[in-house]
């Protein structure tokens, strides 16, 4: 796990490029405290900082091929690097290290862009070809590792693992994009490929980028979700399915445990994290360290479940108490770690801090279990609603309008969400896209100043990549559609992005064994009725891990991992929020409608509507982020 950076420009001299890349690497030094390096060749300078996990003694980057043609900077981990070595050695490559970076370099040198499908792991890398004067960069299939880039006016290209590092190149204005701020209010994250800043972009998951010698930059998908063809190797009955699933789970856990440093795990006490920890223990991990966050407030802590799991599995379990006062005190550091504004992720910041202080450099997390195994209520509710839509459309328009107005007038989030579904949703894709929209369109527009409102209104209520995702999902089943929308939107834009930023803020490599291409490609074509049971959420995962997950946890109802923000925001975090929503602070956000934002905050303070906390918090994060930059 590392931070990578690069600047390619025919108009910037080597000394200036190296200065810029040095600044970029320094800005993301937390991503890799163990080593640094830089390489210049032709118009390109690549740099990186390394968190040494595999073959710590070797594997210095940038790494150049023996003939001097290819130079790579690589962020991530290729778990199957040992399996790939013999084939590449047979192809003529003489290995100098036992490091996954060299395997990546060898694979690209021998196979070009076709190497991407060989890799099992998480990665974002860039390779400079000194002979052809081209740059090739790629990102893993599901977007675990980030890669940001910007095309410069002089046909140059700058790229980095973090946006903060990209801006440190001093080649970009760093202006917040009003349309992106509008998108943030809808999704509580800025959906890729957009970022919060103008003129910058995030390379999409499963995409690669090529810069030709004439400066032309193109991006293309190298992986997409499997097409719904009649696949072979499908399970014939549920028993076989569960048995095969267990084999796949064991395999992904084994792959994700590859490291030459201590490996631990986050253990919240839910099914996903307990299954990961249980499978790690079963695969032979000894003295496994696990980490949980606990809260003093009733109804939030999963302490009992986590302890039960740790006891049953036999881990060295660590708990960390999080209080409102502690969050208030740490908030400046947390905000400094933000790469883009986010309404989520603070739990990952603390869990990563706890794990790093607990002595591990790598931690596994159960992230992705809900998306893969149908852990969200949307898997059950949206197909039902979709079946009712034709009846809804048969109602007279006047009656539909009346019902919508009544739903919108009600104060519950559920009613407003239903109104949003009924007003915009025409099929399961549209419903699934709206599912992760946090603020309904009108509420979002009300918070924006006129110009930003006009721009945002044009983008419509759906995800910006709606057309691309629906094309990718042509012919998919209902469970696949909802799973894909969760994987492609909330998981990528919020969960994985926050996990990367906040784990790396503590120099911790966070691995996500459920977010694994091999597992996904096996699971994807399996029949919906095996993967998902509307009566028992994540039944397949529970059944496949029945021997390692205590029954009490398997049978427990899902509890979302939320922090007691509604309480803290009225007490310990109130001074921060008063300051954030002050006229001076809001002055840094010309794209917000100050009166509407102030009203939102005042209403939260006075009405005691605890359900509104998330929208107030997300707006506060956006304002605080803008002030951090201002």
């Amino acid at each position, binding site marked *: 796990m590392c931070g990578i950076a690069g600047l390619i420009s025919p108009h910037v001299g080597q000394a200036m490029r190296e200065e810029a890349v040095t600044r970029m690497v320094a800005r993301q030094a937390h991503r890799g405290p163990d080593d640094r390096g830089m390489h210049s060749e032709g118009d390109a300078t690549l740099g990186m900082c390394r968190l040494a996990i595999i073959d710590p003694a070797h594997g210095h980057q940038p790494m150049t091929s023996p003939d001097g043609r290819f130079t790579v900077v690589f962020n991530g981990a290729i778990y199957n690097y040992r399996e790939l070595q013999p084939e590449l050695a047979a192809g003529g490559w003489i290995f100098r290290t036992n490091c996954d970076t060299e395997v990546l370099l060898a694979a690209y040198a021998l196979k070009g862009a076709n190497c991407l499908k060989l890799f099992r792991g998480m990665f974002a890398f860039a390779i400079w070809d000194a002979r052809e004067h081209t740059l090739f960069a790629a990102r893993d299939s599901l977007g675990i590792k980030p890669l940001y880039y910007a095309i410069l006016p002089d046909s140059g290209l700058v790229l980095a693992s973090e946006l903060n590092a990209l801006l440190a190149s001093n080649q970009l204005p760093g202006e917040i994009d009003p349309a992106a701020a509008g998108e943030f209010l809808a999704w509580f994250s800025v959906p890729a490929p957009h970022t919060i800043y103008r003129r910058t972009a995030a390379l999409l998951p499963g995409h690669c980028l090529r810069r030709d010698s004439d400066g032309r930059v193109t991006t293309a998908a190298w992986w997409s979700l499997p097409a719904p063809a009649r696949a072979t190797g499908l399970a014939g009955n549920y028993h076989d399915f569960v048995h095969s699933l267990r084999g796949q789970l064991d395999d992904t856990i084994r792959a994700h445990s590859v490291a030459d440093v201590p490996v631990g795990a986050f253990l919240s006490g839910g099914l996903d994290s307990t299954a990961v920890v249980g499978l790690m223990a079963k695969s032979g991990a000894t003295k496994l360290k696990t980490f949980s966050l606990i809260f003093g407030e009733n109804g939030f802590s999963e302490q009992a479940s986590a302890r039960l799991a740790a006891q049953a599995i036999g881990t060295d379990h660590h708990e960390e108490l999080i209080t409102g006062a502690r969050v208030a005190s740490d908030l400046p550091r947390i905000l400094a770690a933000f790469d883009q504004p986010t309404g989520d992720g603070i739990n990952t910041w603390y869990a990563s801090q706890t794990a790093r202080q607990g002595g591990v450099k790598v931690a596994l997390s159960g992230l992705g279990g809900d998306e893969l195994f149908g852990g969200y209520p949307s898997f059950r509710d949206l197909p039902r609603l979709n079946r009712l839509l034709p009846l809804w459309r048969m109602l007279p328009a006047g009656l539909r309008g009346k019902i919508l107005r009544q739903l919108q007038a009600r104060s519950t989030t559920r009613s407003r969400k239903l109104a949003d579904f009924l007003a915009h949703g025409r099929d399961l894709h549209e419903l699934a896209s709206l599912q992760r929209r946090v603020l309904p369109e009108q509420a979002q527009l009300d918070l924006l100043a006129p110009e930003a409102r006009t721009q945002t209104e*044009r*983008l419509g209520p759906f995800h910006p990549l709606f057309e691309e995702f629906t094309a990718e999902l042509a*012919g998919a089943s209902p469970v696949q559609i909802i799973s894909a929308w969760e994987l492609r939107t909330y998981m990528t834009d919020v969960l994985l992005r926050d996990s990367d930023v906040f784990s790396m803020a503590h120099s911790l490599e966070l691995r996500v064994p459920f977010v694994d291409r091999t597992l996904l490609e096996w699971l994807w074509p399996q029949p919906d009725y095996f993967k998902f049971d509307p009566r028992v959420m994540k039944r397949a995962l529970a059944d496949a891990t029945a021997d390692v997950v205590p029954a009490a946890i398997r049978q427990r109802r899902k509890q979302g991992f939320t922090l007691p923000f509604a309480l803290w925001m009225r007490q310990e975090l109130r001074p921060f929020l008063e300051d954030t929503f002050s006229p001076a602070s809001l002055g840094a956000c010309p794209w917000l409608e100050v009166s509407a934002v102030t009203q939102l905050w005042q209403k939260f303070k006075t009405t005691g509507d605890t359900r509104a906390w998330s929208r107030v918090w997300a707006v506060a994060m956006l304002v605080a982020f803008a002030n951090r930059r201002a």
Partner: protein
Amino acid sequence: MNILLLSPELFRADGGIARIMRAYLKGVCDGCGPSGQVDSLVLNDQPGGDPRLSLYSNSRLRRNEACAGSRLRFVTRAVRFARTADLLVCGHLHHLPIALLAQAFHPGLRYSLVAHGIEVWRPYSWLERRALLGAHRILCVSDYTRRQLRRFLPTLAPERLIVVPNTLDPYFADNSTRPFVNSPFIAPRILTVARLATADRYKGIDTLIEALPHLHQLLPLARLRVVGQGDDLPRLRALAASLGVARAVEFTGAVDDETLRAEYETCDLFALPSRREGFGLVYLEAMAHGKPCVGARAGGVPEVINDSVGQLVEYGRVPELAEALAELVRRPRDSEVVRRHAASFAFPVFQRRLAAALS
């Protein structure tokens, strides 16, 4: 083969659907075979015929009847004409129930649908679903439209959905061999052509106007010409005035074909950053005149515009649109490459595809 062609309009208006239905009329007349005959029934045209009819038909056209907007007449004539037809071609989704009715009276009749774009990008009523499932072929103007049909009716057999991209009107296309005269950096002239209706705001004319202040920072003399008429015109004029670019935007109103050809001929580039084009015939027309195009990365447009003939932008992103316009002015595409690309959609190509699809 005897073919009955149902069209919403052929000559009453000069919108995209009328233009493409004229191409269909010519295509079925040319391709119905030596013993075949064509009947044409047009819902909205006025009786009395149009002098251009002879251009788009031949001796295979047995009759062309215009119904002056009378739906009753359109339905009854369709059922009657269908008696001697082997194939009924519906020029619009709304005609499908008529095809079902005609088939009930004449069980041997097959019917096909021309799916243009946004009219089929939606959920279908029970009757429409039934009619779509019974169609012999559905001719989609783009792969995007084909995907939308599959999205909203997954049980449609994929082999019945055939992509037949729109074509240039053979009598509109520029046949001159004039070299492309480019005047970049002086006073670039950007052309857009669209119906300026409130219901069609997705065409993105307002984003073009909003892009002008950004564009003027790079190209101070850039001008926008808006060809088209509609009830959204006052709003667009007011928008241009409020942004201080009223003098750089010229609204020409609706124009005839000759004037439109001149507009294409004298512009530097064509732009229509629309979000919901099934195909976008106007891009083809501009490209036939050698002009590069800017469109939105949405609907069927990416199947018409590629990097060698223009640039695609994300709908609604005004700064990106301005940069794309400036980029095309600074680095115009090779007009011969652009013309060749348009030629790949020429009428003979369309005719071959249509014949294969209807066989």
